[in-house]
């Protein structure tokens, strides 16, 4: 009975702990307020210790490589040796001042931070390089022009990728329209209905996430284009992308549905709801934010795929707004064709395309994060809008 009471009280001592040093204890020495401090915060002396150790290791490295060794070494060796020397020096410095435990703590902190840096560095380099190369040639006309009248020797800043951007957006929209209903239905089957096929289906979906994208392209190519059911066009590319998107959406959505508390399903059923209504009106709306994230993740998964569209959309330099007939281009294809060229200017133009593609992917991921962490405020806005639209739809409903 007192359980909620205690859980509610629990955070308080921790909150008080932070404040404790600020409130002066009455029995201080001569009424003096002890200085306020945060036990785990970094201090200037810490920085000085690191700087000192760094300086010492740098000097030692220079002495070894510059004075003692008879041959010259690569600059990278300086960094490696410097780092290797830094660790014991730093350890000695800290042990001297604060004891062995603190020294061990600091050393591991440094090692972990180095690991994090190594993991982070490739992303920074890749993104940084794309941004640098892309920004050099990216001009507003990149978003308004096509490659129709651009010759192989035109400058990199001439022409644009409007036809590819349009193609990418249309193909992505079509692939989403195909894959999302199927993926959500499959997720509902796996998580809510749990039929006899659930196990094999989940296994296949898991395996399909590892499907090489070129296989998806080949598959669609051989069953749609080869028998002349449809010629190369945007929609055929969308089919290939949908195949890649389907398992991603399914698995992400299934995991989201699993998180919906079972108590809500029971509550709905206990009101006399048929099972399908409890899924449709309680489970899916409860998981709405997570499901949106699943969809966006699926989109982000395929928007940059090159292999499946290589064989299926045809690729072109002119604008084709109709995804259902005629060759269509898209951004990955644009980058691919441009960067294969022997002309330096075309290669430069490819980087602009890569930058735009990167921006689209980033946008999708940011969107996924925002939707996924929908704050109560946002939700309330959405709920109100939904209520409003419903009252307008059924004329009799009067609002409270």
């Amino acid at each position, binding site marked *: 009975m007192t359980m909620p009471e205690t859980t509610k009280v629990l955070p308080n001592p921790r909150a008080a702990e932070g404040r404790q040093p600020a409130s002066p204890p009455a029995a201080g020495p001569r009424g003096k307020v002890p200085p306020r401090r945060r036990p785990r915060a970094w201090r200037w002396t810490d920085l000085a210790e690191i700087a000192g150790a760094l300086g010492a290791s740098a000097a030692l490295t220079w002495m070894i490589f510059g004075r003692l060794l008879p041959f010259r070494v690569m600059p990278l060796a300086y960094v490696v040796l410097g780092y290797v020397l830094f660790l014991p020096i730093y350890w000695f410095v800290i042990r001297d001042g604060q004891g062995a435990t603190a020294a061990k703590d600091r050393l591991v902190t440094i090692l972990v931070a180095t690991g994090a840096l190594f993991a982070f560095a490739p992303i920074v380099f890749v993104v940084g390089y794309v941004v640098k190369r892309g920004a050099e040639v990216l001009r507003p006309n990149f978003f308004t022009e096509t490659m129709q009248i651009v010759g192989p020797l035109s400058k990199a800043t001439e022409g644009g990728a409007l036809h590819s951007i349009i193609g990418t957006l249309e193909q992505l929209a079509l692939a989403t329209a195909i894959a999302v209903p199927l993926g959500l239905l499959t997720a509902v089957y796996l998580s809510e209905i749990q039929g006899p096929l659930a196990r094999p289906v989940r296994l296949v979906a898991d395996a399909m996430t590892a499907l090489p994208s070129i296989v998806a392209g080949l598959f669609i190519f051989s069953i749609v284009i080869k028998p002349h059911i449809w010629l190369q066009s945007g929609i055929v590319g969308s089919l290939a992308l949908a195949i890649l998107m389907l398992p991603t959406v399914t698995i992400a959505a299934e995991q989201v549905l699993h998180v919906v508390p079972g108590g809500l399903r029971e509550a709905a059923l*206990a009101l*006399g709801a048929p099972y399908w209504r409890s899924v449709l*009106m309680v489970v899916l709306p409860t998981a709405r934010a997570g499901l949106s994230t699943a969809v966006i993740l699926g989109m982000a998964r395929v928007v940059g795929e090159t292999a499946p569209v290589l064989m299926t959309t045809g690729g072109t330099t002119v604008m084709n707004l109709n995804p259902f007939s005629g060759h269509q281009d898209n951004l990955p294809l644009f980058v691919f064709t441009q960067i294969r060229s022997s002309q330096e200017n075309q290669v430069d133009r490819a980087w602009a395309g890569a930058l735009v593609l990167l921006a689209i992917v980033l946008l999708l991921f940011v969107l996924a994060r925002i939707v996924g962490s929908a704050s109560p405020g946002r939700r309330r806005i959405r709920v109100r809008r939904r*209520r409003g639209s419903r009252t307008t739809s059924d004329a009799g409903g009067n609002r409270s």
Partner: protein
Amino acid sequence: MTVPEVDQSVAAEAAPAPVGGVLEGVQVSCWFGARKVLEGVDIKMDAGVVTALIGPSGCGKSTFLRTLNRMHELVPIATLAGSVLLDGHDIYGAGLRLTEVRRRIGMVFQKPNPFPAMTIADNVAAGLRLTGRKVRDRDDLVETSLRRAGLWNEVRNRLGAPAGGLSGGQQQRLCIARSLAVSPDVLLMDEPCSALDPTSTRRIEETILELKDQVTIVIVTHNMQQAQRVSQHCAFFLAAEDEPGRVIEQGPTEQIFSDPHDPRTADYVNGRFG
């Protein structure tokens, strides 16, 4: 004879204040897989009477309660024997639809479980949408149900706010209002106050006493004082080690607490075990 279709149209009139139904468990036994957890339970839960089920945990009170509105069968390995009669008709028989049974026999759970994606008003009216019924005056139904659950005054100005923003006790009363909105004949409550503070508990007990003439109430509780305060009929469940739970004794609450016939009942209600 209550044919579901007829009853539905009556309910569509949205005239609350159903006079409770009579629920009767006849020789109910329950199994989870091969394990028998409940044996031969006979309890008659009369209209206008609050029936309390008491007993140490694990003796099958929740299981019995869940057989009363066919929630028991949601567990894939669960089976049962015996029958449950609602106004004389077997709820496991062919004459009553499963969804109709659950609508007429509502349930309030131990943990408050309002639908988080819905507003307060939508939560109350959720039962209508979930059972595919229309009501002429939705706002009136929302207000009536909230009033009956004793929550109206606290939420009248924020019916459009998300239900998750309410306190635990308010959420539980919202769940009661949600159950009442589909005009059930019986309301089953499985330790409805065990997650709540004393003030909220008292509010819910008041609600139960106000509702008892409109709907038959069956409540599982671990709180002896609560059983004495709200119930008129009381059944004591007990499961010996490695044996299914049984009803050791039942009768008027007063008698169970002041003059129990079975020494085990006396021990339990006086707090000597369990």
